[in-house]
């Protein structure tokens, strides 16, 4: 139980995928203009991460390891993730056309989202069992959601702030992301001694 808690906390805060591992920066900057779309994107990533990490875990252990074909890891994982994203895209298009429109190009871009692939690879590297994999996925996507929504909230406030001409737009967004990342570094102290 304690182990699971540590995994979730670690994935969310101390080793936050976006702000500490710098994975998934593309949607982090791209879909963070509005809190509502950020939330939608987070939910999509949560779903994709859950399904993809479970699937990749199973495929790795029951299809790659028995044949000693671990070297196929990357390409197989990408295949699985891409299919999962396609499925998610269809589901979102069916269930929430407005969210589908708001996410736009970033939805298919989850396909090549390094956060998802990174998660799948880390699952294997860390030798997690299925339960740990599930909670690591929850923690990772929770961390992604936390970073994305926090950042979207900041950017919404920035819209109203008087920003010097040279810093307007992406520049101030990157500066903000950097400061947010620094803030997350403060969680490092939480990490269990290993």
């Amino acid at each position, binding site marked *: 139980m304690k182990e699971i808690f540590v995994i979730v906390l670690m994935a969310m805060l101390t080793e936050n995928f976006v702000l500490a591992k710098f994975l998934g920066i593309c949607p982090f900057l791209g879909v963070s203009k509005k809190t509502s779309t950020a939330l939608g994107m987070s939910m999509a990533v949560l779903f994709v991460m859950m399904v993809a990490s479970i699937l990749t875990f199973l495929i790795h252990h029951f*299809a790659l390891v028995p044949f000693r074909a671990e070297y196929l890891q990357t390409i197989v994982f990408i*295949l699985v993730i891409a299919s999962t994203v396609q499925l998610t895209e269809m*589901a979102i298009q069916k269930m929430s056309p407005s969210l589908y429109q708001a996410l736009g190009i970033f939805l298919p871009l989850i396909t090549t989202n390094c956060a998802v692939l990174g998660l799948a690879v880390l699952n294997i590297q860390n030798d997690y069992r299925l339960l740990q994999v599930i909670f690591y996925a929850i923690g990772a996507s929770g961390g992604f959601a936390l970073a994305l929504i926090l950042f979207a909230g900041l950017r919404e406030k920035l819209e109203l702030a008087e920003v010097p001409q040279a810093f307007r737009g992406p520049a101030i967004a990157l500066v903000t992301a950097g400061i947010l990342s620094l803030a997350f570094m403060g969680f490092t102290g939480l990490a269990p001694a290993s």
Partner: protein
Amino acid sequence: MFTNETLLALAILGSIGLVMSVLLSIGKRIFAVETDDRFDRLMDILPGANCGGCGFPGCSGFAQGLIDGTAKPTACPPGGPEVTVLIGEIMGVKLTPGEPMVAVVGCAGDHSAAPPVANYQGLRDCRAAHAVAGGAKSCAYGCLGLGTCQTACVFDAITITDTGLAIIDRDKCTACGACIEICPRQIIRLHPKRDEVHVLCINPDKPKEVKAVCTVGCTACKLCTRQSERLVMDERLAVVSPEVKADIPASCALVCPQGTIFDLRQYALSDWILDPAARRNFEQRQEAWKAEEKARKAAAREKKSASKAKPKADPDTNTDANAEPGTDATPPAGGEA
């Protein structure tokens, strides 16, 4: 060994790919989104100018509106009758296209006719100029000529003359209404394309005030309304009525003492606005017409008096009755000469 490994890799990838594709095709069935093929067909026939003349955000918004039933199928001005008929075909209804319209700038008072009364140095935008004490033009209803409508027009139909007037190209204008919406003075209005005559003034002030600010403004003399029923008075302005169906004779324009009425059967609009020769030609024709009219009136008067005189004259002697028309007949002859 090498081939075995390759085969194995291919087999693993292939089987995973197969499983995924089966999953995806099942998903496609479950999450099938019904798209209306009429949307794509409508997008194909719409002009694609995204002018907003229909009141919807762009052509795609209009197509969606048509499918949802919120848009009027006849609402696409740039498409004109052809597109309206095609929309009808796609939507499965029979449509009779509306009257083709054209936007007309209701002002002919250029810098010489309605000179600027102030030196405006602000933004080159009619809305800004209009906001500053009503613009620099003497006439508060006249075209400011700073080209705000020109930039609003996506069809490149509006030009601004050097004399500070907007001219709309009748052939390029699609009556989308973008210029009408943006003009701060509401000078541009839609008129049926079949109208041959336009009153190029919208100043509703008293005749004296109109004359004080512009030499080509409508002074509400009502002379034109006597020439054709199509011209009616709207308070202190002559307008071409869209309801009345009657011919507009050339005399409608010729009778106007101010030269406010533009007859496109006689002149091109750009000539009328820019070419002094057109104005001179108009004045000559006006003189000729006036003389003709005078002669005709005199002839009519003579006829009238003759017919009046006849019943009285009949009981009297024949010589008296003959003498009277003779004396009256001389002035028209002199007028014609």
